[in-house]
């Protein structure tokens, strides 16, 4: 009797599981569809990941707000019904995890998360990644800062000796912090702990940590609200701070017109930011919910430029060395394989604009010329 009940129980459990999986799978198949087979006329969804807590990825906000992607899709992929969805994430890691599982096709990422995305492409069986373009750039480390609580008595980096400082481990700010400490020979005398930008902000506000290294818009927000002070701006390290756009490589290869439309939209957004700073600030404020004054500062301080200069690749190589040095890389990405500027070139040329010449690409960022 008992055995029979057990058997019935097993069968019921199996059936239950099967039904559950079936239910899930319909969602799963939608996701597969979203990856977009390119049969014309078939509805496909493209999901773009961005991060409202990272100002250097705010090129996305212009595209989203002005519907630039849709505009260029209509030109480059006419007749295809493509739905554009936006996914706001609190951190690059969330986007990376979603890209790996096929839920997001294009993401705006800071330099470190984009390199981790490259590693995912190398280590995961079902994911390959490609770096398409840059978004926001911070010259010499601009748009990052080490913050201290109000009236904390810490006036220079040297005062951090023996103290505990927080930053998101493995981020650009972490690199900036280590670099600053190295300049003062303090690397071994400061305890670095991991805190997200939001937890870090709260810790500064409540004086729970000696200092916090972070990126815009938080330093400006802290100053505007007068709840903390800037100990040092990122420029002290003279290392450019970069954010870029990464895509699922297999998807990109299968959907080239969509990628080109996206890059044209990115290009238009960057030109818009340069030519209409006030309107851009309003868009930033509306989309990110950060105060307008802070957003104005972001438009002024961030160079929104998709172009991939050789010196940017050198900066990324330095970041690879940094991540490997702190033991956070399973494998070292090879930039010549990860970064592919052919899409960007083609997109720029299809919009009747000339891309950087060989000589320009090897030089410094060109003032007033953005892609």
């Amino acid at each position, binding site marked *: 009797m008992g055995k029979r009940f057990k058997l019935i129980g097993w069968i019921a459990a199996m059936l239950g599981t099967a039904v559950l*999986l*079936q239910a*899930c*799978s319909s969602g*799963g*198949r939608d996701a597969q569809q979203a990856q977009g087979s390119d049969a014309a006329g078939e509805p496909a969804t493209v999901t773009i990941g961005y991060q409202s807590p990272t100002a250097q990825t705010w090129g996305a906000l212009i595209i989203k707000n002005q519907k630039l992607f849709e505009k260029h899709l209509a030109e480059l992929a006419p007749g295809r019904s493509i739905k554009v969805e936006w996914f706001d994430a609190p*951190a690059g*890691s969330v986007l*990376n*995890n979603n890209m*790996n*599982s*096929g839920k997001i096709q294009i993401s705006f990422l800071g330099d470190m998360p984009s390199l*981790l995305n490259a*590693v*995912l492409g190398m280590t*995961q*069986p*079902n*994911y390959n990644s490609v770096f398409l373009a840059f978004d926001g750039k911070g010259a010499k480390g601009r748009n990052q800062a080490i913050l201290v609580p109000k009236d904390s008595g810490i006036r220079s980096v040297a005062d951090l000796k023996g103290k505990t400082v*927080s930053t*998101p*481990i*493995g981020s650009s700010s972490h690199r900036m912090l280590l670099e600053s400490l190295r300049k003062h020979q303090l690397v071994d005398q400061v*305890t670095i*702990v*991991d*805190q*997200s930008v939001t*937890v870090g902000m*709260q*810790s500064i506000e*409540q004086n*729970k940590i000696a200092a916090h290294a972070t990126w815009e818009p938080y330093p400006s927000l802290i100053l505007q609200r007068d709840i903390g002070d800037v100990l040092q701006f990122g420029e002290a390290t003279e290392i450019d701070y970069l954010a870029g756009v990464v895509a699922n490589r297999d998807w990109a290869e299968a959907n080239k017109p969509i990628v080109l439309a996206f890059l044209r939209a990115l290009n238009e957004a960057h030109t818009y930011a340069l030519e209409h700073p006030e309107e851009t600030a309003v868009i930033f404020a509306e989309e990110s919910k950060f105060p307008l004054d802070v957003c104005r500062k972001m438009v002024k301080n961030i160079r929104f430029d998709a172009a991939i200069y050789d010196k940017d690749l050198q900066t990324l190589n330095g970041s690879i060395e940094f991540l490997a040095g702190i033991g*956070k890389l*399973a494998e070292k990405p090879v930039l010549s394989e990860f970064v592919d500027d052919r899409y960007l070139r083609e997109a720029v040329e299809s919009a009747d604009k000339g891309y950087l010449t060989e000589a320009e690409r090897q030089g410094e960022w060109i003032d007033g010329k953005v892609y």
Partner: protein
Amino acid sequence: MAKFIKTAVPFRRPALLRHYAVRLTAIAAFVCLWHLAVRANLLWPLQFGNLPGPVDVFREWLASLSQSHYYRDIGVSTLRVTAGIALGLAAAVPLALWIGISRWAHDALFTILEMFRPIPLIAYLPVAMLLFYTIEGSIVFITFIGAFFPILINAKDAASRVPAAWLHAAASLGCGRVKALWKVYLPAMLPEIFTGLSVGIAASWMGVITGEMMSGQSGIGYATWQAYHLLDYKQSLIGMFTIGALGYASSAIVRLAERRIVRWK
């Protein structure tokens, strides 16, 4: 009698062995299925192919076992959870007793507590950060919240169900009202307190990642969280399994304690 025990014991052994055999086989089957799903790169109905395989995970786990920071993380988290549970127990039992006995306390307190109960632990994070002077305090507070409500609810129900006849009997034997709390109410509530405790301990472990998201450097929850952020899926799984094992071990300790203390059950 002696003869009965002699024959009884050999009967129990094979049964016990069989139970353990089934348990081990179930775990082995789970690991096998996992291995096969990953190796076959199964992508439908779920994308198992994206997970790291058990062999890789166990190999890395083995490597973690020889690293001191792994044990430090476990130790730190265990301390935090234990502190949360101890505080939860100390706060929930007297409160439950009061709410269970007094209609007034029920009306005044229970409504408020019921409003706080359904709030997910992660939603307490900003409040925890604001309330406490140290980050450590905030973390323990999160584990405390996890343990507090299950113990409170179970113990409160038990307290309100103590039969009046027992109290009358105790009173007629000369037991005062205060003494009755110790001698009648608490023993009557004990089984439910333990039930609440074993639920609460699991909830407290569930809160450990939420709490340790703030910690910044130590704890098994932090290690799991950081592995997720750095896309180290093997370490994420190791963290998950470690928390699972620790939770299982703590529940086992609670059950053992229950068998020792609540002998009449």
